[in-house]
């Protein structure tokens, strides 16, 4: 195995392990290989392999693990989405595509993406909309098209039944669609440049309560999707994944929109109403190492009512379930921070932590076009060239729109950051598996977090990340047991702005811990821009200010910082208390997408959403368990 030593972007470039790409070569679609003289192909292939950069100190790759195309039935029936998975992948990597005659090109391409169409009756929406397909010729589909919309009964059945209407070959349609779907992902995978995953969404929504999970396969060894019509119980989804694993098919599941689960996502009990036990906890942690905490339908980190002391909790709160109603269930079961606390409780109680989750952010766009940017987001509406003022008013909720959920309250953008050694399926999946991920509400800001007992301040000031990995754990991991006579663990915290985005306001450490068995939480401002300090009397820092101009929907980086970092120790650390620590980095206030859209087109700002927001990044937590206890 050869090595090339080339410094690229501060990282050492070496050839990747041949094993990792051998799989890729074998599965190369036939279109471009085939019969060309092998010697010629081998030269080209060797060049491609050698060009996969490897970053020993890991690089932050940005992507989206949640996107729907016209293979999602709801996207077609409700939004008439026509974009195919292949087009979605091409768009996300910056290639020009043409949709219904309109040329589209993404301004800032992504590093990786998973198209996650609903497993339920996958591909059938396209067929029902096609008047000449067997499914489309049925009286049922004909009536549906004539009405212009599916009725509620059909929509409900689409997510719960494998055969909602007799006379249509649902199974055959699904099998064909899934095959094309795999081909699109394989065709667009370019190791080192753009990684695709084969993935699907399991869309269990009992009683409008969202239990959805995106299932991401590690390689091209995949199984036919498991749907909510197979079962609406997460335990059964894990059985499917475990069965696959026994056959060498590796995957992980990422729950999302806990905020719309009516308390079910992080409930204390399993699907049968029994208190979570060790077996459940181990299975859940093994199959669900990540949670999507921010996306179009709001953030699921924390609700203001659950964290009265958190002055930044009121961010992109979205509470309208698919019924349109606001859930009345257990609020704590809807939010990540509470789940981290419950995980600590259940870990002590059951001996394993069911909610040991890192974080990711997703778009959940149903247009097939990923869109992480605040300045061209349109909610559920597509990227129209020249929407009329009336249409803009509908998007902004100024006039009644036809969406079940209020469009103006949806959140613009949202991304996943992954610290991986290279941009390949294996490297990114493995980083997700070890939870070395962070979520952002759209900007490509980066956060690093390490914890260890033997760290020194110069490791942070000198950016010696290699040493940080060697002597401690990165985000997503476990702090090793406290050595004898060790004081408090040391944290290395670092955040840097998006090079095309806003400055940083502050970086916060959020600590969740158990005190006499009861969950507690505390937020520390560990790094503040502009020389501000926390007032010891109030425990709060002055606000960073607001440079936004609402007349022009612009801001300036005249306030805030480019980079913030902290060498931090927890003043309240108690080696007998289980704890989890995660970082939240805030940008300075900038105009929200609704403000940008309204201002550009001269319509009033919607009143039910803030004019400016503080975009942010969240790290995955690092866990500490008292010595001798399992930290599963």
């Amino acid at each position, binding site marked *: 195995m050869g090595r090339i030593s*080339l*410094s*690229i*972007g*501060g*990282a050492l*470039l070496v050839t990747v392990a041949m094993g990792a790409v051998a799989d890729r070569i074998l599965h190369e679609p036939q*279109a*471009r*290989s*085939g019969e*060309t*003289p092998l010697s*010629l*192909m081998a*030269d*080209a*292939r060797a*060049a491609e392999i050698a060009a996969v950069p490897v970053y020993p100190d890991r690089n932050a790759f940005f992507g989206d693990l949640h996107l729907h195309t016209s293979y999602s039935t709801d996207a077609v029936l409700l*939004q*008439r*989405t*026509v*974009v195919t998975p292949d087009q979605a992948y091409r768009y996300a990597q*910056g290639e020009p595509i043409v*949709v*219904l*005659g*309109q040329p589209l090109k993404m301004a800032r391409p992504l590093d990786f993406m998973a198209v996650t169409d609903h497993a339920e009756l996958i591909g059938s929406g396209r067929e029902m909309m*096609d*008047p*000449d*397909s*067997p499914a489309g010729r049925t009286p049922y589909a004909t009536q549906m098209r004539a009405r212009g919309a599916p009725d509620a009964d059909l929509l409900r059945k689409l997510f719960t039944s494998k055969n909602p209407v007799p006379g249509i070959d649902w199974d055959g349609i699904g099998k064909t669609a899934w095959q094309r779907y795999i081909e699109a992902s394989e065709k667009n995978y370019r190791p080192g440049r753009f990684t695709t995953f084969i993935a699907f969404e399991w869309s269990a929504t009992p009683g409008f309560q969202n239990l959805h999970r995106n299932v991401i396969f590690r390689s091209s060894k995949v199984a036919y999707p498991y749907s909510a019509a197979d079962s609406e119980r997460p335990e059964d989804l894990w059985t499917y994944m475990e069965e696959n694993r026994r056959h060498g098919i590796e995957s992980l599941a990422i729950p999302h929109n806990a905020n719309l689960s009516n308390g079910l996502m992080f409930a204390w009990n399993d699907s049968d109403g029994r208190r979570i036990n060790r077996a459940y906890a181990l299975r859940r942690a093994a199959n669900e190492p990540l949670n999507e905490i921010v996306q179009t339908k709001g953030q699921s980190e924390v609700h203001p009512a659950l964290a009265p002391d958190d002055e930044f909790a009121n961010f992109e709160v979205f509470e309208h379930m698919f019924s349109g109603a606001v859930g009345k269930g257990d609020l704590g079961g809807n939010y990540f921070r509470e789940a981290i606390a419950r995980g600590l409780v259940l870990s002590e109680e059951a001996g394993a932590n069911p909610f040991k989750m890192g974080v990711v952010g997703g778009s959940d766009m149903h*247009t097939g076009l990923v869109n992480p940017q605040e300045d061209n987001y*349109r909610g559920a*509406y*597509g*990227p*129209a*060239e*020249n*929407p*009329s003022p009336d*249409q803009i008013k509908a*998007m902004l909720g100024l006039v009644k729109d036809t969406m079940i959920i209020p469009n103006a309250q949806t959140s613009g953008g949202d991304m996943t950051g992954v610290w991986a050694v290279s941009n390949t399926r294996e490297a990114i999946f493995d980083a997700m598996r070890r939870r070395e991920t962070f979520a952002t509400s759209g900007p490509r800001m*980066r956060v690093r977090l390490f914890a260890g007992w033997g760290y020194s301040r110069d490791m942070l*000031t*000198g*950016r010696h990340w290699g040493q940080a990995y060697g002597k401690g754990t990165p985000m997503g991991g476990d702090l090793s047991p406290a050595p004898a006579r060790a004081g408090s663990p040391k944290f290395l915290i670092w955040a*840097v*702005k*998006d*090079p*095309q*985005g806003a400055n940083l306001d502050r970086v916060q450490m959020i600590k969740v811990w158990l005190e006499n068995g009861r969950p507690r939480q505390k937020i520390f401002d560990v790094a503040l*821009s502009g020389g501000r300090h926390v007032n010891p009397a109030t425990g709060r820092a002055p606000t960073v200010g607001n440079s936004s101009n609402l007349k022009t929907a612009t801001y300036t980086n005249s306030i805030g*910082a*480019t*980079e913030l970092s902290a060498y931090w120790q927890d003043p309240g650390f108690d080696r007998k208390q289980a704890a989890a620590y995660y970082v939240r980095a805030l940008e300075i206030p900038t105009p929200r997408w609704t403000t940008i859209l309204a201002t550009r087109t001269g319509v009033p700002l919607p009143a039910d959403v803030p004019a400016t927001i503080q975009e942010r990044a969240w790290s995955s937590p690092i866990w500490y368990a008292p010595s001798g206890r399992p930290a599963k």
Partner: protein
Amino acid sequence: MPLIKAALREPLLHFLMLGLLLYGAAVIHARLTDRTRIVVTHADVEMLADRYGKQFGAPPSPSRLGALIESYIQDEALYRQGMALGLSEGDEIVRRRIIQKMDFLGEGDIREPTEADLRRYFAIHQARYGEPRRLSFTHLYFSPDRGGDARARTRARAALADAHGGKSAVAIAADPFPDGQSFALLDKAGIERFFGETELARMVWTLPPGTWAGPFRSGYGWHIAKVETSEPARNLSFAEAAGAVRGDWIDEQRERLKQRTIATILRGYTVDRNYRSRS
């Protein structure tokens, strides 16, 4: 009017009128069932506009709609031709699939290219198989976090004077940059990924190698930069490009065949643009 009365009783006239009637019916029947006549109705156009509007959130512009209509006519012709050729037999009768089949009609007729084919194609289209220009450069970063933007720029200017005065870069006090001081073989997209689409990312391409220059603003702050080497954009050798050349050769043959096929098929149809009379 006895003459008319007589004429109305005339069997020949009856015969002629009946014939006229039958002829008219036949014409109408033919218009309704003529396989070679494509009628684009107002409803069809509305359907196309509606589908576009639902996808994009706004109706198509007139020129966009025009393109959608032409595409619709083409699809319709391909569909009918495909049906006529019996492509539906033994298969699901799916309009879209027939269109796709017609789109790729003749795909099997495209032979595997010889090396001579590929070399000929490569010689004509060599410009397509290029490596972009790449830069290797060193930079020193001055963060606005230390005393503000103006101060960072001043520090960058002083550093530039020091560098021009012969001071070595390692001896010049600068701030740590998130992605290091040296970058190798980056193309335009690579530089923008690290620095944003900013002054630095634009200006670095204009610098003569071996000389420090600046200050330039990036998305993070101020920089001085020295290009170490500039690899000009270059054409790939045939061996390097062979895989892509084969794919493009086949794509081109397929596209030519497709255009020829579509043109031939469309000549067999008349298009009745019904929607125009109403708009």
